[in-house]
């Protein structure tokens, strides 16, 4: 075959594949948008459901989702960042560290429904916390932990050695070097990792369905139960009680996750502009 023909075929195949990816994303977004936009209104966002919880707004579910996500973030960030600092800066690189990394990667691939079941068994039942924001947040944090830990570790490793040497050269101890120069330099990418994990948590269904409960409730304390948006969406659609409202919730959920992702990009871009 002519080299130029082969080239043209390859190029077309690559182009079509890339286009397919974009097209699928566009189709999903467009479908949800077209079906959901008519539902979206301030009333839909800020009022409570009524009837058999199929009519009216979704306000308590938005609050439940944001509440549990924020709580999970508070739990996961210190643990994940400290673990990553240990792995990247302190641990002697060898078999043990390799195993910890492998464990983190495996944790990331545990099906979320299994994590939900585990949360139900451990937090809700065994520890007696019950269906609550806290139980759900802790189960979610298991899901977020490997994401935040690995992105933080990568971020720390990406800090140029010159930055470390600069601090050591001024008479900084190891901890001073890590805490005052390496972590600040890695911070934008760490924040990006946290935001991406948060986006993942907002959209998570299987974990929260087992640990938060389904009661329509405006959570105040971490021990209150609630109904996350994803579960509300699932119920609206599966029970077939109000499909338009399900699309409305879906659109709202996608907008929130999109906002998180754009936030992450913003931080990353701001950091790369400075170097």
């Amino acid at each position, binding site marked *: 075959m002519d080299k130029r023909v082969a080239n043209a075929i390859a190029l077309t195949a690559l182009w079509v594949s890339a286009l397919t990816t974009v097209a699928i994303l566009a189709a999903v977004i467009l479908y949800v948008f077209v079906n959901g936009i008519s539902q979206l209104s301030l009333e839909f966002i800020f009022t409570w459901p009524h009837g058999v919880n199929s009519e009216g707004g979704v306000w308590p579910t938005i609050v439940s989702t944001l509440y549990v996500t924020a709580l999970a973030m508070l739990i996961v960030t210190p643990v994940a960042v400290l673990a990553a600092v240990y792995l990247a800066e302190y641990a002697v690189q060898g078999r043990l560290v390799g195993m910890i990394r492998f464990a983190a990667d495996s944790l990331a691939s545990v099906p979320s429904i299994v994590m939900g079941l585990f949360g139900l068994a451990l937090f809700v039942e065994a520890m007696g916390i019950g269906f609550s924001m806290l139980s759900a947040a802790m189960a979610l944090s298991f899901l977020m932990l490997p994401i935040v830990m690995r992105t933080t570790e990568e971020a720390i490793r990406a800090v140029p050695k010159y930055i470390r040497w*600069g601090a050591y*050269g001024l008479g900084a101890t190891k901890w001073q070097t890590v805490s*005052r120069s390496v972590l*600040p330099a890695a911070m934008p990418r760490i924040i990006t990792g946290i935001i991406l994990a948060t986006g993942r948590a907002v959209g998570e269904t299987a974990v929260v369905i087992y640990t938060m409960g389904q009661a329509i409730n405006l959570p105040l304390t971490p021990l209150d139960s609630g109904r996350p948006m994803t579960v509300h969406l699932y119920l609206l659609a599966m029970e077939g009680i109000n499909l338009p409202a399900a699309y409305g919730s879906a659109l709202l959920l996608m907008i929130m996750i999109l906002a998180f992702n754009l936030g992450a990009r913003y931080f990353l871009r701001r950091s790369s502009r400075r170097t």
Partner: protein
Amino acid sequence: MADQLRTRSTSVPASAVRDKISVKGLEFHYGDFHALTGVTVGIREKAVTAFIGPSGCGKSTFLRCFNRMNDLIPGTRMGGKITLDGEDIYAPGVDPVDLRRRIGMIFQQPNPFPMSIYDNVAFGPRLHGMKRRSELDEVVQRSLERANLWKETKDILDRNGLALSGGQQQRLCIARVLAVEPDILLMDEPCSAIDPTSVQKIEDLMAELKDRITIIIVTHNMQQAARVSDFTAFFLQERTGEPAVLVEFDRTANVFTSPKDRRTEDYITGRFG
């Protein structure tokens, strides 16, 4: 004698009569690789000493021995003895963290921290416990002045250090080092990543600083060594795989006008390297 004290471009101050650092029989290994052997040299106080030689001749490695920066590289070993003001810096009781306070270091790549100009300069003093804003303000201004960067930055102290030009960044790094008041300044090819105008500024700065500070500069650029240094050490690795040696050490004028060793002469006349 007075004539011998003159070099091509600079005069050695009268105070430069004793060795600040003295090195005896230094050996250096990276794992199995023997990088340097048998280096014995005295670094004169309050003078500029240049280390020259082709790439891979161990001059940067040698420089990092003085502030024990090589301790941070796994698998390195050093033999022989280095004394600073008569004290063995590799003695068991010496904390490299304290040592590095007294010996500042400037790197090839300007490395400001991703924070404001002010915070960059205040970094060292804060590490060592300075907290009062008025004291910090004073140190920041004095250090930037000594690094000839104050005029350019006094109105933008809160701007990110990375927003400066490459040459300004390097002077910011010098200011950051000066803020901890070191006796010795190690410069590892400080000018190879910046523009010529900035090189000029940094060379002028070195001439000003050596009244108070002992400076050692590693450079690829022989003209620079001839311009800025009082003493020159020429290092050479003769064959791949063999350790590098210190071929010649003398007043810069002697090294460049009447080298004693044939290899030095070959190098400075551009026959290799």
